[in-house]
């Protein structure tokens, strides 16, 4: 029986921008979901995966394209699709039992059935004895179990999971994943398919039958990877490692076609490049780590991520910033320090600043632009809003805000210009 649960066709989501244009979040998304699969949506934060999940859940409407659930278009939250939230989204004023019963009450079932089904779900998910507890009395892991029970109790066909383990500590997350996979494998869960949004590559390989990779800005499907490993999977299994490596390579591959809006992943930045918000401290930290043994200037990204206990999400912006500043190069899942990067690692504080200043003014046109404007003005002062307005012509308000913050922080570190938050102005003077 291979009935299609979900059919997503040419899905597109955009939001209006300040200058009248539109900010594209999702573009050209196509995929089908048969029964019996766990499908992973893998990409970085802000890549629109969560937006996609909300479109599937009927919590938002797409700008174009369609989501068909069991052959019916999704126009509102459909019965049969339930969601587990990253932040649990439990109602703090309801007990565990009441939280679990909520979805059943909304279905207008008789009191007795509600109770019986809720207790069964609580039992299944290992929450016995906690029925009358309030969420605040529970640990993070137990709270997310309530989240699972609440979603499962309505017997949904599709379970949507929005980074359900990312707010938990490593051990708790692992226990919860294992428990879930066990129940799923034994067919004890009243669901026919799962969609898991994650930015954790290993989590995706561990849990999913199929992984869909997303690019950022806007989110497009860049690759689809089948995972044929048998459950339970072992993270140390060479085949497992190979898959992880393969995904890293796919995620760091240079783009073939230029995206309409520049992203930090490209080689060189232009003035309208969206800059990641990474602190100068983090940049120098990564350079130092890369320069030191065992890496000696070159590292495999998965290994580096493991070493630094960073997730994909956290590592990518940092490494891409380095690439943007020509302090490092990324290719085929590897990161390599450039000559400038090596020099940076060996320098003292003052030389580092000088070097960073040079790189910043050469390779980040926005920083050079701000400095030029300040130099041209008689009093060497310019309001922040001037640059923000300029950026907003090219990107969404949110991105413009983030980019300006990033370039402000880098410029401050490099002492290229000063910024006063009280008055909201850039200037060339440094407070003496």
């Amino acid at each position, binding site marked *: 029986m291979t009935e299609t649960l979900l059919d997503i066709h040419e899905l597109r989501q955009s939001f209006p921008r300040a200058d009248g244009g539109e900010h594209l979040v999702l573009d050209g998304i196509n995929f089908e979901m048969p029964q019996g699969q766990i499908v992973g949506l893998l990409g970085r934060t802000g890549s629109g995966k969560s937006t996609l999940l*909300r479109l599937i859940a009927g919590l938002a409407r797409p700008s174009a394209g369609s989501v068909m659930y069991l052959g019916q278009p999704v126009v509102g*939250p459909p019965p049969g699709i339930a*969601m587990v*939230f990253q932040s649990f989204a439990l109602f703090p*004023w309801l007990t565990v039992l009441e939280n679990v019963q909520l979805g059943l009450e909304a279905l207008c079932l008789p009191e007795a059935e509600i109770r019986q089904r809720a207790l069964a779900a609580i039992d299944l998910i290992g929450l016995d004895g906690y029925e009358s507890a309030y969420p605040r009395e529970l640990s993070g892991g137990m709270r997310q179990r309530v989240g699972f029970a609440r979603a499962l109790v309505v017997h949904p066909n599709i379970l949507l999971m929005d980074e359900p383990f990312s707010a938990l500590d490593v051990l708790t997350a692992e226990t919860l994943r294992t428990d879930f996979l066990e129940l799923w494998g034994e067919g004890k869960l009243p669901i026919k398919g799962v969609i898991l949004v994650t930015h954790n590559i290993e989590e995706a390989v561990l849990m999913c039958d199929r992984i869909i990779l997303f690019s950022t800005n806007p989110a497009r499907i860049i690759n689809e990877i089948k995972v044929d490993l048998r459950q339970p999977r072992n993270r140390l299994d060479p085949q497992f490692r190979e898959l992880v490596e393969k995904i890293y390579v796919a995620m760091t591959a240079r783009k073939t076609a230029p995206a309409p809006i520049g992203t930090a992943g490209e080689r060189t930045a232009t003035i309208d490049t969206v800059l990641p918000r990474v602190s100068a401290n983090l940049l120098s930290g990564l350079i130092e780590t890369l320069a030191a043994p065992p890496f000696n200037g070159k590292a495999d990204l998965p290994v580096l991520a493991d070493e630094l206990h960073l997730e994909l999400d956290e590592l990518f912006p940092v490494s891409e910033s380095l690439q943007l500043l020509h302090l490092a190069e990324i290719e085929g899942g590897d990161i390599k320090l450039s000559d400038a990067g090596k020099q940076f690692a060996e320098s003292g504080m003052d030389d580092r600043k000088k070097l960073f200043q040079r790189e910043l003014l050469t390779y980040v046109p926005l920083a050079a632009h701000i400095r030029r404007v300040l130099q041209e003005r008689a009093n060497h002062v310019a309001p922040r809003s001037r640059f923000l307005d300029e950026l907003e012509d090219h990107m969404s308000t949110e991105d413009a805000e983030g980019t300006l913050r990033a370039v402000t922080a880098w410029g401050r570190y490099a002492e290229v210009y000063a910024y006063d938050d009280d008055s909201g102005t850039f200037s060339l003077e440094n407070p003496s």
Partner: protein
Amino acid sequence: MRVVVPISVGGWARLFSRWDILAILLVLGLLVFLGEASRHLFEPLIELEKQPPSLDPRHLPEYAARTTLRMLIAMVLSLIFTFTYATLAAKNKRAERILIPLLDILQSVPILGFISVTVIFFMELAPGRVLGAEFAAIFAIFTSQAWNMAFSFYQSLRTVPTELTEASRCFRLNPWMTFWRVDVPFAMPQLIWNMMMSMSGSWFFVVASEAISVGHTTVTLPGIGSYIALAIDRQDLRAVGWAIGAMLIVILIYDQLLFRPLVAWADRFRFEQEAGVLPPRSWVFNVLRRSRLVDRATRPCGLLWRRSLRANWLTPRPMVKPLPRYRAGWISFVWDAAVLTAIVIALLLLTRFAAQGVTPADFGTTLLLGLATLTRVLVLIAIASVIWVPVGVWVGTRPRVANAVQPVAQFLAAFPANLLFPIFVSVIVAWRLDPNIWLSPLMILGNQWYILFNVIAGAAAIPAEMRAVGDNLHVRGWLWWRRIALPAIFPYYVTGAITASGGSWNASIVAEVASWGNEHLHAAGLGAYIAHETELGDFHRIVLGIATMSLYVVVVNRTFWRPLYHYAERKFRLG
């Protein structure tokens, strides 16, 4: 507890939007309409048939009960108003644009102004005169309670965390169920806090609302308020003492039987748990919760209640955010038409009103008098701040002291200014002081406590680590105040000062005119003007005075308090 500012602080980019102007028109129009509708009735009103009120303390329990009942009914009405008005404003963008400015203007209208204008209207509405007067009194108390509750509820509804909204939609809760399972619980702690504040505040107006005299119409309703009024009229100090005692007892009973259980119960609704704060306790709540009898009695209601939530006559909303389409055209048409009609009527009434009997000189007078009252309010707030900020910080950084001080301050906040008339009037007369200056403290009397409350809350919220850093670096004396204490409490202080400022304007109508027996003292000010015209029953000048006062309040809020609030939020908000 994060305190909600009682004025609208959204959309601060512009001082006044066109929606504000519309709101002003509508409120003024309503006032004129109510007044016009009852104007011809000013003269021939028959005195209320009643037993003459007595100063015998034996009547006090009955009076207290009646006053309490009025306040309770007003509270229920305020809750109904809050649940409907604020919900509509929070859920419907179209309605929000007019409802929120309207609320902002309404809260600026002096409460006693409402009484002056509406009393005759209400008395005409009811068949029996006493019932009408009761309506008027309850309405006045309602106006002193409802606005800030509605603001608090509206702000809570707008800050319900997205994930909770999404969860409730994902699990297809119907709107009725969402309201009671998500919205109300989330708003509950803040709402209860505001109910307590409203209750305190309304005591101040109980006195005024139970003994109303507009022109030749004098209405006296049996209650603590009219008892106080009579005691002042007859210069009976002992009776004033009895009244204070009765009030104290009623406030205590309220606190123990109503608010404390409510606060203890609402603790479960708090969204984020502050560490190290003991959950509030209430013996009444514990008794109620543990009693098997109560449990058995309430269980059927609970079942029925839950069944109503599950009612399937309310199907889940298909979409919360529909695509912008030109359908639903007729709804928007009807809405626009309704708003437009209301505005045209308001404009007509206002122009006719302005054409009759109000001279430009009157405008000038009220504006000047308003300036006098404004000066008083600002000076008093400044003085009160200098006194209460240090005290509040001192108390707030000592949790044990704070716990002891809170209830006392709460009682003082409820203390009607009239009760201090004897002292003030006697002293001013005996020492031949200038009433223009020495009556002023009465205005801030009940309102200074809001500054204290908020500063205490702010000081208590200073993180222990921040204080430890101060100790560690030996930051002491003035430096400690300048760098740590004052910035940390500033946002709280601003909220308190805004509340106190609004309250002082309101109180000016009572406080700029004081009497004790035959001694009547007047200060030059807008409050005294309104009080005087109310006594004369000059409806035109009453409305003019009220409008001018609203104007002052709104302008001061928009040009001074709102920017200050945003500055404080941006710069000094911790965390």
